[in-house]
């Protein structure tokens, strides 16, 4: 250290509990990363949502080096392509420019010019707003990049060793991490001697080690948090996986202690003093605001073809000051959001009595359901509803094959009961279990042989004769190969007709309370059809480590089938129905609930328990299945038109073959588009969105004000499904906006580490977020990053009350992380909730937007 230390009396070493508090504060910058087998959306910005969006934007830029918006050039391209227009820009400017009226007209060089047009010229022509730059650097990164590279290389390996699973158990993972690490790093010959010696005599506890680093760098309070945060964000992926805590014994405190200890030992002794803000003030790129502003004025004048007198130039300059350069991107972003919000905003469609439909289908709010619902409605006399895909049943599911119980509910909810799959045919269940055990033993045997010291040589040689033909078969005939494998499994372990036991898992009063709240939440309290299909969703994919990301997020990254089956069983239970009668919901005796699952890759809708449907409803079921088959072709054709590598203008047979192939093909990197393109969530009766093509871009939650007298259903919707939708939206946006920081890069470089995640290539940081193939093709992004646009059709007072009661929702609205619009009924205008109350937005009196066609809403890039 070159600076003189402060007098020792001013400092007392921080206590362990204080250090842990600082670690928690530093970890605010991270969103914990779920392991791959339950990889569901995680909002990477969650820790910043207590800040207003524009402040958070600056913080995220400084700490992560990424942006919450696209580069200005991308918005200008979007403007040229018609994805943003002058009306959108004017509206966005209206909320950002306060010091000057946009409607004012100035007279320059003898021409009348609207102030709004001045700003639009500024947005289109001024020098681009600068890209974000990471300024929070660790001491090693700032002062000794070469040492930094070595430290990070070692730490990336340490992360993989601590959280992954090598064939030989890692000595690091035995016992307390800090002890194991000090012991084994002291004997790690890949580390320099000096470092090894230092590690051996490092502090006894990780907290002390961190305190030692605080003392060395002379940081306290916020600066200490900044030091830890710089360290966490140097390899943010591993830190995020450690923060989740489910993959290993290592904690963030351990990780940070190892990091700062290594750094102290590895850095040369003449390293200068570190301060978190040093980089910001001494950075090479110095910006001269006055000069930039002058360039901006000149660019606007040029763009408007004005030759300005000095006074006019001064006025222009003053006007432009009303929109700071950093706000320009926010204006662009808000305008792009408004453009999309207009495309999807629900219209007026007065309630009309349609009579009793042949069947009703309840599907997940997932945007992928929107396409299938639209096609189902067009294929038969079918009414559809949107509801959370776990059907509000928080269960752990134990399948008949005897695997581990799976938490089939949102990750933030603990399963309330364990539901078992069973059958009267005990012999069949036994056979199924034996088959599962056999498969498991065979798998373990092959893995054991492939991954030990002397056995893999003969094994590879023998196995090659089987895997060689398998490579060819899986490549040229993926569907047939998958079918053969399935048939083989069916021979080894045939699946019997099974049922679930929610009537055992839940007491009668629990079932009644559940049934009532679920029906009120989906707005289905009368007019039940003869057949009510509860349709969960899952995705058939092959060879895809991110498979869980395509399953139902509300079911914790699993298929929705257990929840659909359990819910159907509850609704068909006569006792539950009697209880519902007492609560004002009468389900007719001839209404049967049926569980189904929508495969979002193949678009097939499978009836899960055909054996549970009474013979009286066989015809209804057959009619529904016919409609589903037609809807499958329609929806599949619509989706294939957007999927890379799909045949053009396919016949029905080609559509079906192509859908099946995408689910079975081990080479496929675009099985489906997932939730790519999601823009909005609409909480309203289906009639206001029906008969419109929303291009699978909207979360649709059914809601009827009348069915929810006390507003509790709406409160649940806004505080649970809406939050999940916002996470998903944020994850897709972040993966698109910063594919190298919040995205996982191209799938072809992925290298799976245990269950914890993937790295790219031979190592480095754990990748977080979604693969590029989930949000883009080639050089171009396909997802359009916008903040979630929420539309709620319910009385404004009710919405306002719920928002002010819920801290999380209020924070999202006040800090502008979502846009929340509401209207009481079909005939009123949409009002936007802001920090200052409801603002009636000219959504309806804007230059009338045309009905979106699939082409218009999907012609991205």
């Amino acid at each position, binding site marked *: 250290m070159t600076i003189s230390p402060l007098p020792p009396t001013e400092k007392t070493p921080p206590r362990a509990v204080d250090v842990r508090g600082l670690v928690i504060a530093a970890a605010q910058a991270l969103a914990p990363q779920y392991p791959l087998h339950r990889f569901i959306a995680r909002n990477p910005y969650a820790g910043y949502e207590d800040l207003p969006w524009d402040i958070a934007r600056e913080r995220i830029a400084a700490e992560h080096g990424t942006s919450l918006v696209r580069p200005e050039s991308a918005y200008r391209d979007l403007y040229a392509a018609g994805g943003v227009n002058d009306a959108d820009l004017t509206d966005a400017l209206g909320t950002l420019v306060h010091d000057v009226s946009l409607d004012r007209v100035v007279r320059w060089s003898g021409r009348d010019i609207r102030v709004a047009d001045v700003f639009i010229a500024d947005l289109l022509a001024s020098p681009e707003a600068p890209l974000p730059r990471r300024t929070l650097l660790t001491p090693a990164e700032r002062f000794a990049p070469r040492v930094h590279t070595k430290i990070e290389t070692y730490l990336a390996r340490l992360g993989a060793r601590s959280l992954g699973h090598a064939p*030989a158990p890692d000595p690091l993972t035995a016992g307390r991490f800090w002890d194991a690490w000090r012991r084994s790093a002291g004997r790690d010959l890949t580390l320099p001697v000096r470092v090894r010696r230092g590690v051996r005599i490092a502090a006894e506890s990780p907290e002390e080690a961190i305190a030692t680093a605080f003392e060395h760098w002379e940081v306290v309070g916020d600066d200490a948090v900044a030091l830890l945060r710089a360290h966490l964000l140097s390899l943010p992926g591993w830190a995020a996986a450690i923060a989740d805590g489910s993959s290993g014994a290592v904690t963030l405190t351990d990780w940070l202690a190892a990091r700062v200890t290594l750094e102290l030992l590895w850095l040369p002794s003449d390293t200068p003093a570190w301060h978190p803000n040093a980089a910001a003030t001494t950075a090479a790129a110095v910006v001269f605001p006055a000069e930039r502003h002058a360039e901006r004025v000149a660019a606007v004048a040029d763009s408007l073809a004005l030759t300005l007198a000095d006074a006019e130039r001064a006025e222009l300059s003053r006007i432009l000051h009303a929109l700071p350069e950093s706000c320009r991107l926010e204006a662009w972003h808000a305008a792009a959001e408004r453009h999309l919000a207009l495309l999807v905003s629900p219209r007026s469609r007065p309630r009309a009595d349609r009579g009793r439909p042949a069947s009703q289908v309840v599907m997940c709010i997932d945007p992928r359901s929107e396409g299938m619902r639209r096609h189902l409605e067009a294929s038969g006399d079918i009414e559809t509803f949107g509801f959370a895909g776990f059907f509000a049943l928080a269960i752990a599911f134990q399948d008949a094959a005897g695997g581990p119980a799976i938490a089939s509910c949102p990750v933030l909810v603990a399963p309330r009961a364990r539901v078992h799959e069973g059958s009267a045919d005990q012999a069949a269940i036994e056979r199924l279990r034996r088959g599962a055990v056999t498969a498991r033993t065979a798998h373990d*045997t092959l893995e054991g042989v492939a991954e030990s010291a002397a*056995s893999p040589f003969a094994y590879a040689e023998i196995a090659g004769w089987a895997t060689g033909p398998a490579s060819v078969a899986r490549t040229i005939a993926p569907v047939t190969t998958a079918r053969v494998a399935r048939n083989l499994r069916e021979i080894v372990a045939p699946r019997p007709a099974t049922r679930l036991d929610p009537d055992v898992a839940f007491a009668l009063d629990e079932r009644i309370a559940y049934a009532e709240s679920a029906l009120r939440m989906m707005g289905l309290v009368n007019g039940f059809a003869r057949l009510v299909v509860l349709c969960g969703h899952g995705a058939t994919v092959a060879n895809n480590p991110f498979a869980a990301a395509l399953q139902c997020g509300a079911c914790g990254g699993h298929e929705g089938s257990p929840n659909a089956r359990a819910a159907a069983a509850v609704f068909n239970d006569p006792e539950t129905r009697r209880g519902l009668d007492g609560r004002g919901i009468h389900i007719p005796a001839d209404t049967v609930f049926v569980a189904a699952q929508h495969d979002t890759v193949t678009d097939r809708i499978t009836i899960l328990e055909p054996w549970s449907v009474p013979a009286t409803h066989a015809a209804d079921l057959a009619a529904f299945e016919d409609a589903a088959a037609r809807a499958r072709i329609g929806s599949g054709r619509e989706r294939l038109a957007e999927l890379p590598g799909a045949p053009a203008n396919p016949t029905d047979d080609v559509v079906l073959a192509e859908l099946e192939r995408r689910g079975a093909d081990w080479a496929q990197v675009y099985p489906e588009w997932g939730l790519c393109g999601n823009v909005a969530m609409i909480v309203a009766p289906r009639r206001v969105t029906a008969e419109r093509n929303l291009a699978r871009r909207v979360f649709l939650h059914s809601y009827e004000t009348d069915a929810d007298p006390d507003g509790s259903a709406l409160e649940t919707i806004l505080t649970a499904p809406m939050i999940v939708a916002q996470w998903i939206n944020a994850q897709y946006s972040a993966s698109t906006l910063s594919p190298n920081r919040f995205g996982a890069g191209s799938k072809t*470089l992925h290298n799976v580490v245990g269950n914890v995640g993937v790295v790219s290539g*031979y190592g480095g940081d754990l990748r977080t977020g979604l693969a590029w193939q989930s949000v883009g093709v080639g050089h171009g992004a396909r997802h359009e990053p916008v903040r979630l646009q929420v539309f709620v059709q319910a009385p404004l007072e009710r919405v306002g009350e719920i928002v002010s009661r819920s801290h999380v929702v209020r924070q999202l609205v006040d800090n502008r992380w979502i846009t929340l619009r509401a209207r009481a009924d079909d005939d009123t205008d949409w009002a936007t909730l802001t920090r200052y109350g409801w603002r009636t937005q000219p959504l309806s009196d804007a230059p009338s937007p045309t009905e979106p066609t699939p082409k218009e809403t999907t012609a991205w890039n």
Partner: protein
Amino acid sequence: MRSASVAATWIAFALAAASLVLAAAYASDVVGSIFATLALGVTGTVQLWSIRHLEGDPRATRFFALSSVLASGLTVTAAAPNAIVLAIGWVVASAAVIALITLGGRTTQTRVALRRTLVAFGIGDIALVAAVVTVTATPVTSLNELGAVGGAPALVVGILVAIAAITRAASVPLHGWLPATLAAPTPVSAILHAGFVNAGALLLVRFAPLEAWTTPVIVGIAGGLTVVIAGSAMLTRPDVKGRLVHSTAAQMGFMLLACAIGAWPLALLHVVGHALYKSYRFLAAGSALLGEPSPSRAQDADTRVLRSGVASAAAAIVVVIALIADSFSHPGGALVPFIAATVWIGVWAATGGRGRSRWVIAAGVSGVASGYVLLWAAVENAFPLALGAAASPWLAVCVFVTAVLAGLAVSPAAPTAIRDYVYGAASGWGTSPAPPSHAASLTEPVEYERSSR
């Protein structure tokens, strides 16, 4: 650009196919035909796979063109009628691999991989070219007449050929390039590990008539060391591709070892089997999840004795079968311990399961391995390739023992201090610098970036 790449793909592939036809039909060269068929088959399959896997990837056309060039380089090597053509094919293949590595994009990892590959191939390919130049300077014109080269030139050529073979096989001490090639897309690895790394065996077969003890000694020691070191490194890798890459290095070490002790037919059998196995494993690398965590299986002590007894008995049966089949009269007999180890581990792992089926699986493992020992014996009897100089078969036995000891040293059975040291060294073996890439593009994955940063 795109059409040029497509044309290059077809031309190169046609050239590769022509070489195969030449080797098979014209020269009726069994070894060459096997290698050429393997290279073409694997490349073709991986290319078909990549049509979907690289959908939308800006690097796809370059991949098809370059992988076809690689295939043609490999088949030309295999079908080469003389040393000069062989060297041309060899260098073309090396160049194609270097070009394929650039498909990793403008990442730090690609730069590291390129640097390492250039250095390694520089050494290996220059050695081969020097060997060919030396041979050309002698009166010998055909590879079959290499026995006529004698004295110091033979020993020098032997050393040069050994260096070239070791480089290709990523054996010690020229091993560093192979792990770094993971910076390239998955299909590149699938071809590399199946068709490219094993060309060392072909080279050794071609130069086997040369009477030089230097080749088997160098190749045998390097291969044996690699079996031990890369084999333990594989055991410490938490990432699937890391396991595959070190497994390949160890397998290629095994192949070199087999060549060195003169077990040529077994080396060729191994080349084919391993190539088909490894390309599959790379293509299926996305399936490497552990699945839902399940309660660990009971590992009670009483069954351990029973299990190890059964495993040892099964391994002994394999050795007896090898005895009966007269395997030990061939040099390949020294490799029988490896297949016995496979049986031991397989039976041990199978009997750790539950239910009656574990015994069926254990019996299946033993049966298949026994059959394979018989196949080994049959192949050795059918193709008694007794070529040139060979190292002592005891080398293979030493390697086997050392590999088992190294495997034990990284296992929980080892004393903590030994395990820490060995595990730490093994887990650091062959690793490359992986600095975090912060200053990356904001609009597309850094691996797709076109312009230099």
